[in-house]
């Protein structure tokens, strides 16, 4: 996570100093845009979230209490905006079961057991595979996707992800496990098909 925003005077930001705010925007906006893009998978939606994040941040800065870092606070606003947009566009993608405890019984049911690690890198990283990987992330329920994007794509720690998502560390771990298992399952089916095709030749 970037901590560059720490070099900007918080006092200046809180009193509405526009130059300080412009610096904050320049130092953080690329990260906010990336996260929004990964969560939403759409340039225009990501741009809307980016703009809304800084509009809200500018309004809320005078009340910023510094309980988390400024960057974590910005991520939190951005993730909330992104999730609101997801709910608005696809209300069915946020389901109740995402908040239930991990159920090994249900998760282990019909697991695909295919050792796709043996496939050559060229196959695993082909442009077709990359498109599949992207789509698979977009198919995850939004709450799981957010945890996966923050932790495995943007490489935040569990602690940072928990702060940015306003969740407990255990909750982040459960969501991450679910997201990873679902993606593993999707990739197993996808690459399993390729292995079968290969063996028929």
């Amino acid at each position, binding site marked *: 996570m970037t901590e560059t925003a720490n070099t900007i005077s918080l006092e200046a930001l809180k009193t509405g100093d526009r130059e300080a705010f412009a610096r904050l925007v320049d130092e953080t906006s690329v990260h906010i845009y990336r996260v929004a893009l990964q969560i939403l998978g759409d340039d225009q939606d990501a741009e809307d979230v980016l703009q809304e994040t800084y509009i809200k941040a500018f309004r809320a800065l005078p009340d910023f209490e510094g309980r988390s870092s400024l960057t974590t606070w910005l991520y939190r606003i951005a993730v909330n905006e992104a999730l609101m947009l997801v709910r608005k566009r696809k209300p069915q993608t946020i389901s109740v079961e995402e908040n239930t405890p991990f159920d090994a019984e249900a998760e282990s049911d019909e697991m695909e057991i295919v050792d796709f690690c043996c496939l050559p890198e060229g196959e695993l990283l082909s442009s077709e595979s990359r498109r599949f990987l992207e789509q698979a992330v977009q198919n995850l329920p939004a709450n799981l996707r957010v945890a996966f994007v923050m932790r495995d794509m943007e490489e935040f720690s569990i602690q940072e992800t928990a702060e940015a998502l306003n969740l407990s560390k255990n909750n982040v771990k459960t969501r991450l496990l679910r997201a*990873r298992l679902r993606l593993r399952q999707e990739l197993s089916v996808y690459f399993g098909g390729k292995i079968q095709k290969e063996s028929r030749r």
Partner: protein
Amino acid sequence: MSEHVQTPKCKQLLGSLSEYIDGDLQAELCAEIEEHLKDCDNCRIVVNTLRKTVELYKQTTEPVGLPDAVRERLFLKLELKDFLKKV
């Protein structure tokens, strides 16, 4: 190729696999998983493919910059036009 993960032990360990591949698991539980993996082909494949899944995403996440036009529209929206040139 679909199968159930066979034993109660497999199911019990499933909940710890994410932390296991991150190296964040207590040594005792780690040892328990490793002992189980010696004898369980299915779980070994699940662990390897879970690790590979995470690796593939890290490998394919491309650095995205902020497009100039997006930055410009952002600054205009925030009434920060005067500061557009200072990058």
